[in-house]
């Protein structure tokens, strides 16, 4: 394998970052904090320049933390004055943290849905009421995409919707801007839909995981209450924007909505388990069973009944779980070494008003996540918010849950470039649109997102959180 110059740069910078405590001593930061910062530098550089896949970076991060920061590791066999090392299990058990198990449950459901064509059949049924007018068809496609991507990965949803939409687009006149509007509506709706539930997309997991490390539990239903109304409004704005930017010439589109549900024993079991799980997730308040516990239901039920076999289990996107776990683990060591607190005390945060703080966090996250993975963006920014809260340097009116939501939601609202999210890359690959179309629409959506996040953070989220 030949390394590109970008990869070599990444590896060199990352290695330098990791080794920096050997050369530089920062005032006010413990030695453990230096080591933690070294690991953070390496992770940040690797995640940004991607000399290795981002999940591999997460695996490396966990190894480095165990080796360098744990009680069983090389550097801190005993407690020192300014650092009490934790056992290595603190780092590896992030792999079984509640949010990871919740995601596992979501993965099993989503993969079973694909296996038994539930996603496609639901799409057909749900599209029926939207008729044949282009603008309502676009709305229908966006609603269905958003709904599915709230429970499945945004990328898998986009791939499935492409099989529905490419034949439709093929029948539309090649000069009709509607083609561009339709092809953009899918990835945009998928990105937005992922916001709606905790399992919708990994940045949500990062946020929920970080909060839970602070002892703040966000139930499934509460996340939906906070985030779903945002997703709905964002979806409507996005729809209106695409209609305005790409005015349809066609007045009528044929839509093939025929298809029958799989009624085999296995498929029926899946429908029942899927519905039961989602209902239990949403009604956590009434029965008190945590969503991670409920998530074990589909995992156990679908494998015990043979609905999902060994091959299906192997096919699950395990690397996402490592990616998120690595991020949570990084957050833990930043807290424990005093690194996070050291970083935030350098800035006079109390001079930031509440509004400015929200706008800055949202803006920075949207900008970063246009170029980086959404998950990585959330992972890199969330420790800052957490330490602002725990160190108490932020001014009054700072609410950790709200800032965390700002970060999580903003990470999903970056869609200017094909590289911004995998759904964007899929839409771009069809050759139906040019990147300037995506950039223009994505830029405007990013601006609206900034405004919308700010409004929600100031007016709606406080009503639910407080």
């Amino acid at each position, binding site marked *: 394998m030949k390394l590109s110059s970008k990869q070599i740069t990444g590896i060199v910078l990352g290695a330098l970052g990791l080794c920096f405590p050997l050369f530089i001593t920062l005032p006010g930061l413990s030695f453990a904090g230096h080591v933690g910062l070294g690991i953070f530098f390496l992770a940040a550089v690797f995640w940004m320049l991607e000399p290795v896949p*981002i*999940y591999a970076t997460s695996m490396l991060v966990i190894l480095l933390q165990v080796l360098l920061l744990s009680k069983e590791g090389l550097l801190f066999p005993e407690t020192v004055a300014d650092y009490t090392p934790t056992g290595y299990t603190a780092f590896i058990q992030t792999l079984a943290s509640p949010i990871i198990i919740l995601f596992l449950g979501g993965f099993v459901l989503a*993969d079973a849905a*694909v296996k038994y064509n539930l996603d496609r059949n639901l799409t057909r049924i749900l599209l029926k009421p939207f008729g044949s007018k282009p603008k309502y068809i676009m709305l229908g496609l966006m609603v269905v995409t958003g709904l599915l991507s709230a429970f499945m*990965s*945004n*990328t*898998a949803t986009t*791939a*499935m919707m*492409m*099989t529905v939409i*490419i*034949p439709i687009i093929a029948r539309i006149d090649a000069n009709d801007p509607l083609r561009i509007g339709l092809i953009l509506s899918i990835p945009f709706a998928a990105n937005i839909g*992922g916001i709606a539930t905790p399992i919708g*997309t*990994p940045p949500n997991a990062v946020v929920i995981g970080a909060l839970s490390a602070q002892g703040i539990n966000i139930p499934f239903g509460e996340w939906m209450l906070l985030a779903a109304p945002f997703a709905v409004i964002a979806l409507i704005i996005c729809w209106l924007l695409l209609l305005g930017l790409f005015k349809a010439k066609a007045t009528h589109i044929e839509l093939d909505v025929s298809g029958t549900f799989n009624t085999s024993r296995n498929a029926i079991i899946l429908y029942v388990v899927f519905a039961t799980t989602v209902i239990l997730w949403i009604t956590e308040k009434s029965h008190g069973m945590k969503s991670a516990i409920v998530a074990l239901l589909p995992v156990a039920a679908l494998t015990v009944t043979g609905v999902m076999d060994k091959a299906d289990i192997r*096919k*699950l*996107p395990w*690397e*996402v779980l490592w*990616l998120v776990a690595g991020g949570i683990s990084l957050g833990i060591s930043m807290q424990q070494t005093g690194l996070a607190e050291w970083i935030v005390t350098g800035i006079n945060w109390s001079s930031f008003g509440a509004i400015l703080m929200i706008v800055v966090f949202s803006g920075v996250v949207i900008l970063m996540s246009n170029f980086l*993975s*959404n*998950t*990585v963006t959330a992972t890199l920014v969330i420790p800052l918010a957490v330490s602002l809260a725990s160190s108490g340097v932020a001014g009054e009116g700072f609410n950790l849950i709200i800032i965390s939501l700002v970060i999580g939601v903003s990470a999903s609202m970056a869609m200017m470039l094909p590289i911004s*999210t*995998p759904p964007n*890359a*899929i839409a771009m*690959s*069809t*050759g*139906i649109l040019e990147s300037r179309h995506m950039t223009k629409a994505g830029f405007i959506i990013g601006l609206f997102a900034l405004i919308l996040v700010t409004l929600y953070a100031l007016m709606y989220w406080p009503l639910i959180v407080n």
Partner: protein
Amino acid sequence: MDHQIYILIVEDELEVMDAIVNDLAAFEDQFPIETANSSEEAKQVITSIYESEQEVGLILCDHILPGENGVELLIELSTLTHTQNSKKVLVTGQAGLEDTVKAVNQADLNHYISKPWTKEQLSDVVTEQLTDYVIEHKANLLPFMARLDGTRLSEAMRNRPLTDH
């Protein structure tokens, strides 16, 4: 892109060769076309493609060729490591039933186009075969979405583990 998937056309009549190359011009920006006039030349071309670390995705082959005939060539190619995965299409008017059966059974013939063909027909077959080829052999299908069958490629992607990171 340094790694390319080639289309190889084996045909001894120049006019026919030109017609095929013309009909497939739309593929050429992504799938370079190589031509050969005989079985012997075809094998040389394949070797040189293989040596420059590229691959042959599709072989369109006439039956009547000087020397070894098309069916024999395809049977031979189906046993070689460089070409056993390549999609194989017989483009001919003159292969008898016996030869054709032999090609299907022994060379894993993927398609049979009888002369004369239409441009649309040929390009549909090439699209279908190359789509099969990339689905079977490529990890990343995105680069092929625009040129090949996007619906089938999307469907193939849907059945692979897809994630958001």
